[in-house]
Structures are given as structure tokens and as C-alpha cells.
């Protein structure tokens, strides 16, 4: 039962980014955030890490330490990309706000 719930929740969590991307595409039509693609790449990497993280829980019903380590590494990569993006936005906006 729990595993079924996990599958449903994971599917929902995978569908929502598709909707989010639609909005993101609309935003990019109007605004000039040059690092939009960097943010998408960062977010996608984090989501990929999350998928790896959740897979053992769904299929094995337990945690596998190696996979956990691997997924955290991917999430770390994603967060690093996001950090770059967020810092860049902060610096750009700071300049404009002057």
C-alpha cells in the first residue's frame, strides 16, 4: 500500500515539472533573465537526483546506501548549478536596482 502511494506521489511530482516548464516557457517570452536555461538545467538535475533517490524505496521497499550517496551527488551538482544561477540573478538585479 505504502509503495503504491509512493509511486502515485512520485508520478505527480514528475508531472508537475512539465506544467512548470510550460509557465517557464511563457515567462522566457517576456522577461530577459539570460540564465533561464541554467536554472532549468539546475532544477532538472535536482529532479534527476530525486528520482534516483526514490527508486529503491519504490522497487526494493528500502533504502540502498550506495544509491542514496549517488543521488545526493547528483542533487549536489544540481544545487551547485542553481547556486550559480541565483547568485547571477542577484548580481544582475543589484546592478539594475542601482
Amino acid at each position, binding site marked *: 500500500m505504502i509503495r503504491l502511494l509512493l509511486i502515485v506521489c512520485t508520478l505527480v511530482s514528475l508531472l508537475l515539472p512539465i506544467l512548470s516548464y510550460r509557465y517557464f516557457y511563457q515567462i522566457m517570452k517576456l522577461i530577459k533573465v539570460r540564465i533561464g536555461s541554467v536554472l532549468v538545467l539546475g532544477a532538472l538535475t535536482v529532479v534527476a537526483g530525486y528520482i534516483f533517490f526514490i527508486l529503491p524505496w519504490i522497487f526494493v521497499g528500502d533504502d540502498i546506501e550506495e544509491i542514496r550517496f549517488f543521488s545526493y551527488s547528483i542533487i549536489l551538482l544540481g*544545487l551547485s548549478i542553481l547556486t550559480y544561477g541565483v547568485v547571477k540573478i542577484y548580481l544582475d538585479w543589484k546592478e539594475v536596482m542601482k
Partner: protein
Amino acid sequence: MTGVIIILTINLLLSFFIFSIAFKVYRMYRRTYLIWFLIALSIVPVIFIYSFIEFSLNLPIYASLFYPIGIIIIEILVIIAQKSLISSVRTEEGEEYKILLREDVALIRAFKKLSNYIIGKISSLIGIENVKRVLEGSIEKYPIIAGCYIGIDERLKTKPMEEDIDEIQEEKLSEAFSYFITKLIELYATFVPYEKIAEELRIEIGKIDRRIIKWFIPFSFFKLVMEPILRECRTEELREIRIVTDIEGVSITKKGGIEFHPIFGYREKQREEKFLSFLERTRHILERFFGESVYDKITENFRKLPNNVKEEMYRYDFIKKLPKGILEEEKITLMSRERLIEELAERKKKLEEAYRRLTEAKFDKMKSTFIDIIAHELKTPLTAIKTYTDLLRKEKLGKLNKIQREKLEKMAKNIERLTKLIDDMLQIPSVDIKELELRKEKFYVKEAIQSIITETEEMAREKKQKININIEDSLTIEGDRKLIEKALKNIILNAIKYTHEKGIISIEAKKDGSFAHLIIKDNGKGIPPSELEKIFEPFYTRDGGGVGLGLAIAKNVVESHGGKIWAESKGKGSTFHVLLKGGII
């Protein structure tokens, strides 16, 4: 296990960092959508903290449900933030535009505003159907504005255009909208005097953001500066002007309206040239119709332009290129401003130089004071040591054996050396100018040099060197004889030291204006050009021999007497020049 903990900790710290940066962005630019993004980002560290707990306590499978739920919440929040951002960009136009809005989208909105202003004015006069027809005609000519339509509220809508075109070319957009707006103005001018229309347009253009104002410069120049004057002309006069001003991309209607939209097909510089060429060709003929006053009219129209346009105009030095008689005062102001900037730059340079010199002087002063203090501090205990050594040597404090006597002799020699060194050090920084005045006297150079030679000839003889002297008998120097002799002696000793065996040293002195010019020349190994300045610095030695104070003292003494000292060397041999106040008796 440790690896997982470490990487989890890094992830947690990174997520906190991202949150803090996002929070800074929010504090800088408070918007609703940023709050949603912030809430979403605040959940990320929570998930990592939960992960710590879950991993450490090894919780059962149901605990893992927290992760997808957490992710879903984050995603929903991000979607809400995005929706909020979209509506913010669509509705707000002030600050939002500066930060976020693409310039091409902003340009569409600016044209839309200007068009809507005129549509609002003329729709009640000619009916909205006629306005729609103008728009359709414009779309036919320029399909780029196909996304525009007149809505049920009788206003121009451009939203589909904003969102359908991936990248809008500003030139094409400006050309199309300039055409459309010109047609609208033509209709408006049928009912309202053009001077009034120009007045209204000035206000509307003045509201356009500075970032995109450059696209409205041709509009301002043609429609707000020149067109009001052309509209005053009679039909036959306009016909003549049309013939004379045959410029590609610019045409004049029968009523004096200017159509300039094709010039957006040219580069910015060429657009400017086209306007200047138009002005040049029309001004002569306008002068014929209106007399000299046409220059005042053009100047006045330029001055009436909105500030945002004028700022842009000044920035590109456009004013300087205007023909004589137009904006003359502004040209003078601009030139004086440029001169002022140049002068400021010059003064800044001078100030920096003065500051550098001051710093160096301060440093030199500090160095001198330091040497002075150290030398004095050393001298006091050294005097006591010397006294006791003398007492010991004279066996006043008891009998000495042979070894003790030998060692004491060595000690005495070294004390003597040290005393001399300290005496030299004391002379570098502290030539007291007031005291010097009291000690000043006139003395013959030849006498002084001969006295120095007597002291140094032993050393020269050892190296089988020859010293030649060529000094006028009556040549004198004015100053502290003792100090000057010491300075000259140091230079001569230096020459002896760096000249090989059987070398020749020559000393010359002659009158040079109100100075005595002494030249001490040797044929020794010479001084490399890079070291010519350094040799006068305290403690600088060329080969590590000596203490390096001799020439520093010489420089100090000469300069404190208002003289000058320098060295020259061309490969082999070196020449020292000393200029000291003096003359011939």
C-alpha cells in the same frame, strides 16, 4: 555512511546558501512571486534535515513518503510563483520593466501606448472603423505587427504579438509602428492644429523609458522638430522643399507631414546622418521662406523636446554636428563641459602625482628618523663599551695575559669600526639647515681636494693608481668645509675602490654660473644604467662590499647645501658630478 553524511551536509549548506541569496533578492526587490519562490526554497533545507533524521534512525518505509510530498509542495509553490510572475510582468510596467521585461517587449508596449493615445483622440472624430482600416493597411505593409488588433474597448492590443514572436527585431518593429503612428497622426492633423498635436506627443514621448528612447529619436527629430515648421509652409513652398530634399527613406506629404519610417532599415549612425542631411537641405530653403528666424524656430523645437530625448541627444555628441545657428548655446555648454572634464582629468593626474611624491617624502622622512634614532641609541652604550675596553687595555683593571690582550685588541678594532659606521649613519639624515648656515664659509676647492688627496693617497698608492687634478686656483665653494670635504672624500674613496690597479682618477673643477662644478672621473668598472640612481641610496652597495653609506652621505651633504650630485657611466668608467654654490675670487 560517512560519505552520505558529508554529502548531505554539503547539500544542506548549499540549500541554505541558495535560500539566503534568494532572500537578499527579495529584500532588494519585494514582489509577491519572490515570496512564493522563497517559501519553495525554504522547504529544501527542511527535506535535507529530515533526511538526516531518517537516515540516522533508519526509519521504516512510510517515512519515505515525506520526500515525494515535500517535492510536490515545492513544485506547486514554484508554479504559483511562476503564475504570479507572469501576471506581474503582464500588468506592471514601471519597475518590473527595468528589471525583467525584455527590451523588445518593452518597445512594443511603448509603441502601443503612443498609438493608443492617438487612437483615443481620433476614434471619436473619425470612428474606430477608419482606425482599424489604418491598422489593417499597416499590417499589410508590415506583417511583423500582425499580432496587433483593435480590441472591443477600441484600443490597440499587442499581447499576442509579445508572446508569439521569439525574438523581435527592434528595427523592423520601429519601422512598422512608425509607419502606423505616422498614418494616425496624419488623420489626427486633419482635425487638430499640428502644433497642438506636437505638444501632446512631446508629453507622451517624455513618458517613455530611457532604455528604449533611442528608437524614438528619429520620430522626435522629424515629427517634433521639423514637421511643425514644414506644416507652416504653403503648398508651393512644400513642393519646392520636396524637390530639394530628395533623401532616400524620408518623404514629405502634401500637407507637410514627414514620413521617415524606411530609415529604420539603415544603421543608427546612418539614420542620424539622414536627419542631418535632411536638415541641411531644408534649412537653406526654409531660410528663404522664413528668414533667419527659422534657426530660432528649429532651436526652440529642439529645446522643447522631452528630457529623455535630449539626454540621448547629448550623449552621442549629436549637437556638435548641427548646422551653425542651431542650439548654439548648448554647443558652448557642451564644449565647456568637455573642457572641464579634460581639466579635471589633468588635475586628477597632478594630484595623484603629488600624493605619490608626498608618500615617498613621508617614507624618506620616516627612514631618516629611524636611522637617526637607531644610531643615537647605539652610540650611547658603545661609548661605555669603548671606555671600559680602553681601561682594560691600559691594565687599569688588572693585569692581562697575552691571549686576553690579543682579543681585546680585536675588540677595540671592531669598536672603532662600529663607531665610524654609526658616525656615518648619523650624518645621513640630520644635516641641520640652521646650524649649517652658521658654519658656512668660503674656501678654495683646490685646497680642500688636496687635503682629501693627502688622506687618501696611501690607498691609491697601494693600488698603483694615478690621481690627476685640474682645478682653477681661485675657484671657491661656500658651505660647511668639514661636511663638504667628507662628501668629496667619500666620492673619491669610492672611485679608488672601484678602479682597478694602475687605473687613473681625475678630479676637475670649474665655474658653472653661480656654481662650482666638480667632476670626479675614473676608468674603473663602471656602473650599470639601472643602478645610477640607486647608488645614492643608504646601505646600497654594488658588490656587497662596504656598508653603502658613503655616497648617501655625499648626496645628503650636497643637497643640504642647495647643490646637486649625479653620476654618469657609459660601460667602462664612471663620472660623478657635484654642483655646489661657489665662484671665483
